[in-house]
């Protein structure tokens, strides 16, 4: 019996009768079901992604020629400002944490819902108005001071859009804090009995690290924005040198959140990739503990690197050195993850379907962004490339090559679970190839542009940069077109795709142990861990002790000698479902 069969057999009673099909109206309601909320997040943020993509395409169209001829220069500034804000605050952050986090965390830990379902719904429902508010700024003069909104520029530009930007980001930050509290409590308190910390799927570790980071850093951003709004609207001078204020203080406060935000944007996808790779490589994840703890290390280190965005802005020398070293050190836990992923796929039986391709694309592209990240951490070199296209290239390799590839990998992997339908593989592969080509065409040449002297956030540039910019623009168009196969595929498959089995990929984590899509409370009974989350390839007699299902189950016995479950079982928790009835009402 393979581990998959064992896990499924152990969880047969946990299946619901028949999945209660979620009515489409449910998705437009104030539902407190984490799965509905997760899908609400994903669909909403995807729409914002398309809007951000249209803005990006406009930016690249402007940059197809050296002259500023497509839009007026201040409109151009608004385009990239809103593009960045939408992509960060309305797409990657909410899609990763809110979307996949909400959908997956309770399923992965065998819980019936999030700890605070109503709070969860509120956290989602304040996002669409905040997003619409941000976009409405185009009607009155959109913000144009960059997504960083540095004063004094943001204050003196006198655009009503700046105030709208502040309010909208404040609301989105609030949503993020609410979600973070919910995740922390859910993961801490609601794991199914028998699931100790070290039997927990890696996505949950990643969400734990992300939520802690969001909870600590986001209030600082809120503080910075509130002070900025006072400067803007009331005429105070927190950041205004005239009244004794200091524009650099804003940068410290802003980056205290916004650098950790980079990890809020990437950690959930580190987690998702750690879930997807072992399933499709048919091998256990390599170095479970190293990956789990490196998430926490990244989360901690992420809090003490912010000033590397300010190497040229007037920080003292010792500060630059301190932040250079902390920034470089982040490469170590990140490197651990990357090498562990490589070791996971090495020697496996790789099923190269769309989910796996995107996951491997994620590693490949993220590594490029990570390497250039170490480069820009070096102060003397950063002085040269700061605020240039080199940085634009770096951040897109991390956030597009990383996060967005991660989101797509997640979409392809969990779509059958979410909708009960399979996606079309051929179109998925077309999507992947187009995206890979378009992405690299759009962003690889930017490294050279930046090194040679093209600064960022400009509508007109030196004609000597034309050729590379044309390549970037064509790449951006291909990237835009690559979205079409995905949208068509997702819409069509959701309505009329072939029905998905409960466990189409033979995964071992608990979300595959219920129906596709899962019933309202996920599991009929508390799910049972018969194996560790990644015990692939341990199905033969040599490595496994089979325990009849009607006997009380000890995960340590059920799992093979190499299983993660053997690593550190929690002896205080009974493994047999009947022993846990007393506990379940505590939820």
């Amino acid at each position: 019996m393979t581990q998959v069969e064992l896990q499924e057999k152990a969880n047969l009673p946990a299946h619901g009768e028949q999945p209660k099909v979620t009515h489409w109206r449910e998705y437009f309601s104030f539902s407190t079901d984490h799965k509905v909320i997760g899908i609400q997040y994903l669909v909403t943020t995807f729409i914002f992604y398309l809007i951000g993509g249209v803005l990006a395409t406009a930016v690249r169209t402007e940059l197809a020629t050296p002259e500023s001829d497509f839009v007026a220069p201040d409109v151009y500034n608004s385009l990239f400002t809103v593009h960045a804000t939408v992509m960060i605050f309305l797409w990657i952050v909410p899609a990763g944490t809110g979307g996949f986090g909400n959908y997956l965390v309770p399923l992965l830990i065998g819980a019936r819902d999030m700890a605070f379902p109503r709070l969860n719904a509120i956290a989602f429902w304040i996002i669409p108005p905040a997003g619409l508010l941000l976009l409405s700024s185009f009607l009155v003069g959109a913000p144009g001071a960059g997504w960083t909104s540095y004063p004094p520029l943001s204050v003196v530009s006198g655009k009503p859009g700046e105030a709208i930007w502040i309010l909208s980001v404040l609301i989105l930050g609030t949503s993020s804090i609410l979600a973070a509290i919910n995740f922390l409590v859910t993961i801490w308190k609601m794991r199914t009995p028998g699931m100790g910390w070290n039997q927990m799927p890696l996505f949950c570790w990643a969400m734990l690290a992300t939520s802690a980071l969001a909870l600590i850093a986001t209030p600082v951003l809120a503080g910075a924005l509130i002070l900025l709004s006072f400067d803007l609207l009331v005429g105070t001078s927190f950041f205004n040198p005239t009244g004794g204020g200091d524009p650099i203080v804003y940068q410290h406060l802003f980056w205290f959140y916004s650098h950790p935000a980079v990890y809020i944007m990437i950690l959930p996808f580190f987690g998702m990739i750690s879930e997807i790779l072992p399933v499709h490589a048919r091998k256990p994840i390599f170095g479970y503990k190293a990956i789990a703890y490196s998430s926490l290390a990244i989360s901690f280190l992420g809090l003490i690197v912010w000033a590397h965005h300010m190497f040229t802005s007037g920080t003292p020398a010792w500060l630059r050195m301190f932040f250079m070293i902390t920034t470089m050190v982040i490469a170590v836990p990140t490197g651990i993850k990357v090498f562990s992923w490589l070791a996971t796929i090495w020697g496996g039986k790789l099923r190269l379907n769309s989910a796996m391709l995107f996951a491997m694309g994620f590693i490949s592209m993220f590594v490029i962004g990570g390497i250039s990240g170490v480069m820009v951490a070096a102060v003397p070199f950063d002085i040269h490339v700061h605020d240039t296209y080199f940085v634009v290239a770096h951040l897109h390799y991390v956030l597009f090559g990383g996060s967005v590839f991660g989101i797509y990998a997640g979409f392809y992997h969990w779509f059958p679970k979410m909708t009960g339908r399979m996606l079309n593989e051929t179109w998925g592969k077309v999507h992947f190839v187009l995206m890979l080509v378009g992405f690299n065409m759009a962003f690889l040449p930017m490294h050279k542009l930046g090194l040679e002297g093209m600064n960022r956030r400009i509508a007109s540039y030196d004609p000597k940069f034309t050729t590379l910019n044309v390549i970037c623009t064509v790449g951006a168009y291909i990237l835009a077109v690559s979205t079409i196969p995905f949208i068509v595929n997702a819409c069509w498959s959701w309505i009329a795709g072939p029905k998905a089995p409960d466990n189409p990929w033979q995964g071992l984590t608990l979300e595959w142990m219920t129906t596709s899509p899962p019933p309202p409370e996920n599991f009929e009974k508390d799910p049972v861990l018969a194996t560790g989350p990644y015990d692939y390839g341990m199905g033969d007699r040599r490595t496994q002790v089979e325990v009849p299902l009607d006997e009380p189950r000890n995960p340590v016995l059920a799992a093979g000698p190499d299983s993660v479950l053997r690593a550190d079982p929690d002896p205080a928790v009974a493994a047999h479902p009947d022993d846990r009835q007393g506990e379940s009402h505590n939820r």
Partner: protein
Amino acid sequence: MKIPSSILTLLVGIVLTLVSLWYGQNHGLLPIAASEEATLIDRLFNAMMTISTGLFLLVQGIIIIAAIRFRQRPGDDTDGPPVHGNVPLEILWTAIPAVIVLGISIYSFEVYGEIGGLNPMDHSVAHAPSHQQVAKMPGAALAKRAGTAFAATLTEAESATDTENRNQQLQEKVLEDPATAKFRKELPQLRDSSDVGVTSGRIGPTPDKQGQDPEFFVNVTGLQFAWLFSYPGTDVTAGELHLPLGREVKLNISANDVIHAFWVPEFRLKQDAVPGRQTELRFTPNRIGEYPLICAELCGAYHGVMKTTVIVQTPEDFQNWLAEQQEVASSEALDRAVAVNPAERSDAEFLAPYASEMGIDAETLHSLHHH
């Protein structure tokens, strides 16, 4: 004959190393280096590029080989080997990146020291320096150093207080102008600010010039959307930065309205110009030529056109230029700067040349600025 995999790995490793070493030195990604500091930074970049190339090829190679070699064969539904981990291997790949980043950190630290970033910053952290401290700042030092060839050409009568306030005076002039009136209203910093003169963030003298005064100063002011350069001790204010070859120069950088950033890619140096602060850059240009000077920090709608030229010329040419400028300046005072100084023009006038280039007319511009 079957080649043992250990030999194959060794060969691959050697090829990987050679390719990385070669590409790290021959990437051709950087523009020419035109300052002494630039050469040091390029060497650091080349070293990082070598390591990066190796790492890049290693990771991409593993992914591609895995995708080909370990793909699931049709009809094979079995799982891979249950390998959970390997502690020595994990320690190894934790240690290697740790050593690499430590190495890069130390190297960066050294380069940063060599370009003058690490020298003790006596007044850098002091807020609102006292008057005595201010007197020790750029202009004062210059007045004391009349011995050098260049400084001798400057009017020695210039008092310390005059030169040290040069930036501020200039900015005040700009602020009085109608074109910047709106900024004056909204952002009258430098008028009443107690913090004027706070110096922070600088690339100071290189270690061999530690304790010496720089050979000469230029005051740099960034304002929407132009750079102004004034040469202390003279009346010269220009819109292009002229520098003599091989002389160490110190730029005192300040901003008039919003944050700008002084960047010359060929010098590999960048420093933000922050309103209410003075930042400093000290370097030695070592190659004759004209290089773009770019504002690297978003400063408003016309950020993209805020650029000018740095002209590095022989000391003789530089002296001639300076003398010429001084002649003009003495008769026309600040008028000389008009050609590039937007202070005396309306926004539309100032932007007219750029506007025609961008295909928009004055009316569009006008409406842009007044909606």
